[in-house]
């Protein structure tokens, strides 16, 4: 992880993943045997697609089956049981949990995007003593296992009186997060310097450079940051387990664990209810993926080019 490798002309990783699209749509240059090869590739892709998708199909199917049919592994439920979903909505605060997940996810994503952008701009725009050392520290902190800070962090929130509330689930994001600082710095460095210099001549302050120029010009990178963090916050189980006791404050993953504990293996083994609840936990993430998959996959591809 040498930091000098990050000095590539900024935003290169983002541009690179765009080139990908162009490169692979061009036809294979090897004419002979090209068709046989292509069909083999497509068949393999098809077979593997079934492996990846079938568990999810099984899940949806099971959620519409009556209890005795859940494990019959039939593709189409017969008879179709809609009561599983009714039971989840009626007997559990599922809508409440969805709302909680939304509030926590939006707070976490907003906090981390703004704070990381501020810090990233500090690293991208200014020249000052100790900058490289500090940035190396940012990159280094990415490798730190979260287990190393778990217990004191809990005690801090406990002292501040925030255990049992949703605040610890997002408030740590107010201080920026290393990966997003790295990502946004890369993007900011790619913005033309002249624009900032011209604004300085016109009397703009440093914060105006950030707020009025850097942020509006960086919407794709900000979107990647926001969406990745929203997703990360939405799926987290550990923090809700540590900080939340009140069922009404649960987020969806914590709620689903409670469903498993009370209806599944810790309860009456009403697996059809557990599966319906599971679908309702998975569905919002798939909707997000349908709308913003491009940003999510771009963000993941960028993470590999840190070196």
């Amino acid at each position, binding site marked *: 992880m040498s930091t000098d490798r990050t000095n590539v002309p900024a935003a290169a990783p983002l541009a690179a993943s765009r080139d990908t699209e162009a490169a692979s749509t061009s036809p294979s240059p090897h004419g002979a045997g090209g068709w046989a090869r292509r069909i083999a590739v497509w068949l393999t*892709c098809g077979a593997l697609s079934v492996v990846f998708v079938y*568990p999810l199909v099984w899940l949806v199917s099971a959620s519409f089956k009556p209890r005795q049919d859940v*494990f019959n592994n039939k593709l189409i439920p017969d008879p179709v049981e809609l009561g599983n979903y009714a039971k989840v909505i009626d007997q559990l605060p599922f809508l409440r949990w969805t709302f909680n997940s939304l509030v926590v996810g939006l707070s976490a994503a907003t906090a981390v995007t703004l704070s990381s952008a501020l810090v990233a701009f500090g690293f991208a725009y200014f020249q000052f003593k100790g900058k490289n050392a500090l940035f190396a520290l940012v990159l280094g902190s990415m*490798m730190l296992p979260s287990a190393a800070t778990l217990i004191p962090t809990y005690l801090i929130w406990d002292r501040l009186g925030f255990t049992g509330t949703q605040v610890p689930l997002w408030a740590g994001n107010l201080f920026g997060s290393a990966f997003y600082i790295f990502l946004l710095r890369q993007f900011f460095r790619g913005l033309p310097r002249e624009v900032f210099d011209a604004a300085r001549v016109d009397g703009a302050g440093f914060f105006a450079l950030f707020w009025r120029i850097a942020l509006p010009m960086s919407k794709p990178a900000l979107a990647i940051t926001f969406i990745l963090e929203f997703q990360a916050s939405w799926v987290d189980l550990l923090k809700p387990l540590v900080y939340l006791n009140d069922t009404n404050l649960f987020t969806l993953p914590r709620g689903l*664990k409670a469903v498993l504990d009370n209806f599944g293996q810790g309860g009456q083994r009403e697996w059809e209810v557990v*599966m319906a609840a599971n679908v309702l936990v998975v569905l919002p993430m798939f909707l997000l993926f349908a709308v913003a998959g491009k940003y999510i996959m771009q963000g993941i591809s960028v993470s590999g080019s840190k070196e």
Partner: protein
Amino acid sequence: MRPETRAAYGFLSPWLIGFVGLTLGPVLATFVMSFSDYDVLSSTQWVGTENYSDALSDSHAHAALANTLFYTALYVPLSILTALGLALLLHSAGRLKGVFRTVIYLPVVTPPVATGVLFLQLLNGQSGLINSALGAVSLPTPNWTTDPMWIKPGIVIMSLWSVGSVTLILFAALAEVPAHLREAALVDGAGAWRRFYHITLPMISPAIFFSVVVNTIASLQLFSEVYTMYFGKTTTPPPEAALFYVVYLFQQAFEEFEMGYAAALSWLLFLIIMAVTAVQLAVSRRLVHYRGD
């Protein structure tokens, strides 16, 4: 101080405060706490190195560490090989690329808790989908969720389902391999395997190395899926074969409130992760090829 420098530190201040208050401070506090006996309610007792000597003789801690290392040693190489295969396939998938990429990525978008709940059923020894598929082609059908020998391989299968993010990282690296290099090798008469081994593999080795390091750190801290499947409120006691390190750490800290002991466990995990990463870094110097070297 120049006004520019002052402004720069202004922009950096959220991270500086967070680094001191929520990273560096807690890491040091974990270290200090590991020499104490603290249960949140009563006051702190200093116990010297007792927590560490306890950990050395704690059979649950041993099992948890052994399970975690076994899983990591099995999962990380398998995940890299699987992801590399999928990335190469994706690279030559032509028009199917977009669809196939989405399909591979869907499991990554699935929340870990949901994956845990789902695979608890799919891996079920009697009625699970995986065993009915294995049985259909006359392969052995172990009790993945109850047989201590098969619990961790079952968890590896579940984790491999979510191999899509590593795949995307390697795929992005593959796309950056300059086509002219491969074409030059083709002109020189190099076969597909030699082109892959001598050109593609060195070019993407930084991305592979990055994935190995990140995946190892994540595997050593596996928690959500395993906790969902085997812990919490259950009618049968959780199998020891599923006791992962962070799960045990979580139990000690937040179920037993043995904060001092849990802090020692945290610090030990921190050291283990640093040691493993250092070894990987040392090995990588000979294997990883950085452009411009």
